[in-house]
């Protein structure tokens, strides 16, 4: 059996057997959809006249996917290093790239399933999201977004040595980023300087591309720009992640 197959199979079993993480990954973003859906039910955003749901649904979906990508790999790496499992892997001929590739495929699968479940729920009559014809363009955006946030998660998982540290660092990154990137509140409602600040945040570009693809707002160029910037973030954080990777807590 190849190392890649073995690791991916073990990762899949660990994922589906972990009920708490399954809930956190798949149901938690839906909870936000319900809360924001109730608050802004039937309202339109004043500045643009578009319904809230068309902002909130792609935004919360992007945050949920990004959050799961960061937390999933960060927890796994922290735990594997703490339990000395990384040392075990280090002593086998399996290269680090194979280990990360198996985690990458798992993260992509989780993210795509998350997005599909989320969009399906958002299209229910109570929420009333309607998909634009160019919705398939959300797939490249998701793949690139998951790649960028997985790379961020690798860095978090390298520096955090405890579950508490993973949760603290990842939440400090992801919660403010969600608000500042327009995942929970439409950016169009924010002051223009905040909108400028959001341009340094990777989640902003995943939101833009996902919103553009799912609801048809904005131009195709917005989706293209979003994907291109996410690709850049993925390269940058991926390089940092590989550079700073540690096999063991012991020096």
């Amino acid at each position: 059996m190849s190392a890649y197959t073995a690791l991916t199979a073990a990762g899949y079993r660990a994922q589906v057997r972990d009920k708490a993480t399954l809930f956190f990954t798949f149901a938690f973003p839906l909870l936000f959809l319900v809360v924001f859906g109730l608050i802004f039910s039937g309202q339109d955003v004043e500045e643009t006249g578009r319904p809230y749901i068309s902002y909130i649904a792609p935004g919360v979906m992007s945050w949920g996917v990004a959050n799961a990508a960061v937390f999933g790999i960060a927890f796994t790496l922290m735990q594997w290093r703490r339990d000395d499992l990384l040392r075990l892997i280090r002593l086998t001929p399996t290269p680090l790239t194979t280990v990360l590739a198996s985690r990458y495929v798992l993260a992509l699968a989780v993210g795509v399933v998350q997005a599909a479940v989320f969009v399906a729920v958002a299209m229910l009559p109570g929420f009333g999201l309607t998909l634009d014809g160019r919705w398939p363009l959300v797939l490249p955006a998701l793949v690139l977004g998951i790649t960028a946030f997985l790379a961020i998660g690798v860095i978090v998982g390298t520096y955090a040595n405890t579950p508490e540290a993973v949760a603290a660092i990842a939440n400090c990154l992801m919660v403010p980023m969600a608000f500042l990137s327009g995942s929970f509140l439409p950016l169009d409602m924010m002051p223009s300087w905040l909108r400028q600040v959001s341009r340094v945040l990777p989640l902003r570009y995943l939101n833009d591309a996902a919103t553009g693809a799912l609801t048809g707002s904005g131009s195709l160029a917005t989706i293209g720009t979003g994907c291109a910037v996410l690709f850049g973030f993925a390269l940058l954080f991926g390089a940092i992640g590989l550079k700073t990777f540690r096999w063991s807590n012991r020096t």
Partner: protein
Amino acid sequence: MTTDSNQPPGSPAISVQDVRKRYGDRQAVDGVSLDVRRGEFFGLLGPNGAGKTTLIEIMEGLRQADSGTVRVLGHSPWPRDTALLPRMGVQTQASAFFVRQSAREHLVTVAGLYRRGPEAADRTLETVGLTEQCDVLVENLSGGQRQRLAIASALVHDPELIFLDEPTAALDPQARRDLWEVLRALKSEGRTIVYTTHHLDEAEALCDRVAILVDGRTAALDSPHRLVTAAGAPSRLLLPQGRLGVEEAAALPGVDRATVQGGSLVLETATPGKVLQAVDALTGLDGVMTRTATLEDVYLELTGAAHPGAAHPAAADPGAADTAAGHLGPQAGPHTQTEHQA
């Protein structure tokens, strides 16, 4: 098992030359040189903090020595050499398991990391006696079972060189004895085993040679038998108390010291044969036990744990040595104790 064609026959499995490693202001390994021969069962002994783990991790290629040379199966273990790694097996911490997997699923995954199939995992589970627990989640295994699974992770890919770190530490006496048989079988297949332990009776029973590390240096390096012989520690005769007066016994020719300990009259002597004869003539040998020096005596003398004036702690606590000797099976190597029947 693979053999390395570009290596001369008879070259050592591991060669360590003047290896040093410093952490901050602590010299963990301070100029160690030793060879582990092919097919040898090599014990690395020493108190906690003596540098055993650091030295083993340098051999495994997990750490880089500050200076000195290390060759493992003819290769340098540092930097990570993916051609060398499949030829060695390393027992890791008993926590290094893939989460939420059964014992078998974990081992199949480890086998996969070595590009081996699930049948290798099943065979190894049987070797370490975990076949019955193969469907138990690793989180639910007992301490001893986790330890055996960690050992299995070191064996699953059929390595020719095996590193084991206190493999019997968390095992009950039966499991420990079972593991001895596993280790002996591995050795009989020609594999080289390097292991650490705090069970000195076990090292004496299993190891071809041992190195005793103290403060990062090798304090002794030889076969257990030669170490014990060379140490020249006295033998002890244990007589049921009351059979002979202490002063009377001390006056016997050849007796260096006579004391009463734990219900026995203990005679220390360098000439046990002569003293036995004398005791036989006086009281008979019924219930008389002789105890020769053990590796533990040598170890404690070298590591300085023995109290001044009581260099042979087995005498201070005869029960401990009895227990240790009691673990040794009929085929378990040197007997340290003999009961004489009249």
